[in-house]
């Protein structure tokens, strides 16, 4: 499991399903982290993000027009 050794944190990409309208930009910017269900809504990876993932995830978070994506820090 990837760990950010500087902070001792795990970072995960998460989606707020209430805010998400399935616009789909995240799938273009972070294809390795996001796939889509039968109705066009994103299913985001549950794995902890490494540095390369983090760059893509940050781009997806910034581009989401519904502000439905975020990166969550957790200490385990």
């Amino acid at each position: 499991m990837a760990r950010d050794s500087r902070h001792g944190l795990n970072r995960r990409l998460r989606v707020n399903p209430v805010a998400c309208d399935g616009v789909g930009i995240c799938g273009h910017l972070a294809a390795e982290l996001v796939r889509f269900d039968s109705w066009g809504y994103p299913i985001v990876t549950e794995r902890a993000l490494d540095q390369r993932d983090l760059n893509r995830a940050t781009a997806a978070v910034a581009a989401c027009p519904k502000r439905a994506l975020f990166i969550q820090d957790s200490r385990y």
Partner: protein
Amino acid sequence: MSASLRLVRQPGHGAGKVASDFSPLLGDAVRYAVDGTAAITRVTADDLAGHVRRFGDRPRATGGAGTELVDTLEEIGLSGRGGSHFPAATKWRAHLAAGGGGVVVANGAESEPASAKDTALMQLRPHLILDGLACAAEAVGAVDAVLWLHGGAHAARSSMVRALGERRAARLPDPAIRLAVGPDHYLSGESSAIVNALSGRPALPGFTTRPAAVSGVHGMPTLLHNVETLARTALAARTGAAHHQGTSLLTVADETGRTVVEVAPSTPLGEVIEAVSANRLAGGEQAVLIGGFGGSWLTWDAAALLPADENYLRAQGISLGAGVLLPVPDDACGIAVVARIADFLAASSARQCGPCLFGLRALADGTAELARGQSSRRDSRRLSLFLAQTVGRGACNHPDGSVRMIESALATFAADVESHRRRGSCLHPGSARSFPIPEPV
């Protein structure tokens, strides 16, 4: 009522404090007609004097007594009886660790259509619930104590309002308790929906990253418990851990109505159902839905000998949930019942999260095709895909419960599913007798 059913009975009146080694909430069974308006059993609420005779005065829970009460709740392993069975003491400690104060909520919005235990408690033991709410408010130093009800729960509301009035008139040393009434929707008893409503937002589930005990109503720590959990808290405050022995409060729902029974946790589920269900007269049961509409199906043979013990069941991957037992008789098509419940759950979606809005409808359509015998191999592969794509995808657990109900049904009614698919015929033709699934609000 079968004589073999070990119903927990009340110790005699006038005993003052509960000193017996079991802690009954209701004692005798309570029956409700299908429409829920008329109780078949004559229901008489404990008035304040009767309540004090039966249980004794409410112990205070301020200061050290509050700390002691949290320890007691931990020792007896009291879990949330709204359905989640989350340890109560863990919530209280999280609330206190977040600074205490804030809000306490007694959740009496009994959304499960097949459940009646909360209604029975509110009608018969309103003061025990209010005792629990008052103790919780004192223990965490809450600035607001709320009783949350469905707008349509008229009998429960009038009973609770009468009880609140009695307490005020008697000048009991209670924190101020106010009543808040929400919509009758299936999800308005969901904890984040209650937090939203009490914060001035629509009573719909919300997406949260922090528990309500840390950040709830208006961002304040919020301790939210089902009314049964609070009634049990009030009992535990009186008995302490040493004299405590828990019971299980269950609702058996069949086509004739709902019966609330209180049993010792060792009582087999089959015994509970056979004692109160009318289905027995018509050739026995085929399967049981345990927990509620978002619960798990088991065949009768698998369910009958299981004890009404949440801890035991949890180890088997089953939960009593809100305490609902919904038996389906041998002469009813289980898949037809599943399809009707799946339709109710889809229609009850708050329509906020895409995977719930579209996923539950796809699942309901898939089970309806199966019930009609119009489901091909390809359709069943699609149903499996939709189940996998729906679970865990909502802000609340509504989609998860729906998936659990359908997945367990496909396993429980496997032979019937196969027959519906291959021959378009049913192994249990006959009337579709079972608990009537209401129109979603």
